[in-house]
């Protein structure tokens, strides 16, 4: 009844081509963003920020990067964690080696470095496809894991690759409380999401989607696969690099290469597939699911245990967590292989017709 575009006539090309053509969508997005900026800091306590919201924001940004590559350009990657690591360590190096480097510039430069690395390790995609490519991207993962552990220059000669940064400073605003961190990450995430939305409906995004749907056919209609694939790798790695820099400098503060191991890559791929490939909103849904589920299980299982009078050890909890997490993933893939974003889209279609379905 409320969600209906009947009677909304587009009278100019500009109105027809805007990012959110339906006013209800537009207002809903504005309301959500406004609530996230103003409402959430008033309502939520510090633990929520630190344990859930900040990781959620940063991982959504990373998942968005993976989604650009996997969901929009169709190149499966298992090396996403490596791009995050490059971003994190590059921005760390810019920060400590260049005097007076602004933190935001260091983060963005870290993203650019990750983009450069992404182009190099994305080059095999020109020859190799599908699952072969997925395994080939693992080369990047293991190479960078090794490089940040063994090459001392990257980590300023610290042992075992662990580095730490002081609180970062943005034009006189020192980001040290969880609320500051949340707002900073949220600002970056909103900016990058808007950028992604526009990139994906423009020329470049359409080239990526053509390559994803069938690359030979795309070549026939004049899309250069090299340009399209490498730009997808570069943009995706840029997002991942910025997310990695934020993860290291804002969320963790001090970190070592293990923070960006293969587990992180797999986690990001999970987010994209559970959230929904080829949908920006899917990145957020997936990140929320993967961030919240383990915390939820961790809190719930001991409670359930005491309910039945069992004494649950922490080892058992972590094993049961594994089991439930794994089976939920399989269950989700069986029930909705196109991800939560598809559920959301179906719900929206229903809402358009409601309450008169015919």
């Amino acid at each position: 009844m409320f969600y209906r575009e009947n009677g909304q006539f587009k009278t100019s090309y500009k109105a027809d081509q805007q990012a959110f053509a339906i006013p209800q969508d537009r207002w809903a997005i504005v309301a959500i963003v406004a609530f996230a900026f103003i409402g959430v800091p008033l309502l939520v306590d510090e633990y929520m920020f630190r344990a859930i919201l900040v990781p959620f924001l940063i991982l959504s940004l990373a998942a968005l990067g993976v989604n650009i590559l996997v969901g929009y350009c169709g190149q499966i990657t298992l090396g996403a964690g490596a791009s995050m690591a490059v971003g994190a360590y590059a921005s760390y190096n810019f920060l400590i080696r260049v005097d007076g480097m602004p933190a935001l510039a260091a983060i963005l430069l870290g993203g650019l470095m990750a983009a450069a690395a992404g182009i190099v390790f994305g080059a095999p995609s020109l020859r190799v496809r599908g699952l072969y490519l997925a395994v080939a991207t693992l080369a990047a993962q293991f190479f960078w894991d090794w490089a940040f552990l063994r090459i001392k220059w990257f980590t300023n000669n610290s042992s075992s690759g662990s580095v730490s940064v002081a609180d970062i400073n943005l034009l006189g605003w020192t980001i040290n409380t969880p609320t500051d961190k949340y707002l900073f990450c949220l600002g970056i995430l909103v900016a990058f999401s808007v950028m992604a939305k526009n990139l994906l409906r423009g020329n470049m995004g359409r080239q990526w989607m053509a390559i994803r749907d069938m690359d030979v056919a795309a070549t026939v209609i004049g899309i250069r696969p090299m340009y399209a694939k490498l730009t997808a790798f570069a943009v995706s790695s840029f997002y991942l690099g910025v997310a990695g820099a934020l993860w290291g400098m804002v969320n963790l503060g001090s970190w070592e290469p293990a923070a960006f191991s293969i587990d992180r890559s797999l986690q990001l791929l999970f987010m994209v597939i559970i959230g929904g490939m080829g949908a920006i909103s899917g990145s957020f849904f997936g990140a929320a699911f993967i961030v919240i589920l383990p915390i939820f299980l961790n809190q719930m299982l001991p409670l359930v245990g005491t309910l039945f009078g069992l004494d649950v050890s922490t080892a058992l909890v972590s094993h049961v967590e594994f089991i439930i997490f794994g089976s939920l993933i399989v269950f989700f893939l069986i029930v909705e292989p196109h991800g939560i974003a598809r559920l959301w889209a179906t719900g929206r279609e229903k809402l358009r017709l409601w309450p008169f379905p015919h």
Partner: protein
Amino acid sequence: MAFFLETLLGGLMSGMLYSLVALGFVLIFKASGVFNFAQGAMVLFAALAMARFSEWIPAWLGMDNLFIANVLAFAVAVVIMFIVAWLIERLALRYLVNQEGATLLMATLGIAYVLDGIGQTIFGSAIYKIDVGMPKEPVMMLESVFEGGILINKEDFIAALIAALLVISLSIFFQKTATGRALRAVADDHQAAQSIGIPLDRIWVIVWCVAGITALVAGIIWGSKLGVQFSLSTIALRALPVVILGGLTSVPGAIIGGLIIGVGEKLSEVYLGPYVGGGIEIWFAYMLALVFLLFRPQGLFGEKIIDRV
């Protein structure tokens, strides 16, 4: 020269062990198009079952014959892997037919989590030993040819022998039996196989059972070398370059890929490693596989990919 040969032989033998894990990948991919990331978890699960039952069975029966205990534990572990295979097919894969490759990959990752969790809940998560009586002491060979001879690990040698035996029996199974023929038919073309009356679900259960047995053998050999512990499940990652190098659909590819990767890893670690700080084994294997892939994108023995619009 002797040192070089020693490294080379060591590489060949560890390559054999990689192929053992890679075989599991190839078998399942060939028959069902599923890239089974859970192979590592299956190796760990099988090794845990074997290690714990070889401890428990003597305690239950009150006897201390190592040989009989091992045989019984092996039998129990085989049965357990059959049950695991059946459950995976019954509860997960059956509903995921015809999904995209990436979705199936993620599903097997989920299965890997479940297997890791269940295995450690039932069997415990400490480090366990598998003692199947493999000789540990190294032997000298070719002392007449080289000064000082070549040092060879007997254990590695026997492991390589077992791997070779497994490969031979698998190829006999695939080439000579009716079930093997059905498996090859399904690998060739699902629809055609179904249309002449080959039951797909049963074939998949059989494939997962066979993969389970290779996982068990790999688990026993790796487990008796390194001890059975959680990190055993990461050997799947060591075997992945082998799989793509040899081609996802080729059994001989898995063997030859394994040998190439094994030799490449050992030689690079010994001759290149000291210059760059060591520990390069893992990514070097992937780089090596990548170099081969640049020339043959479908692996050395994989089926040629033909593009049609």
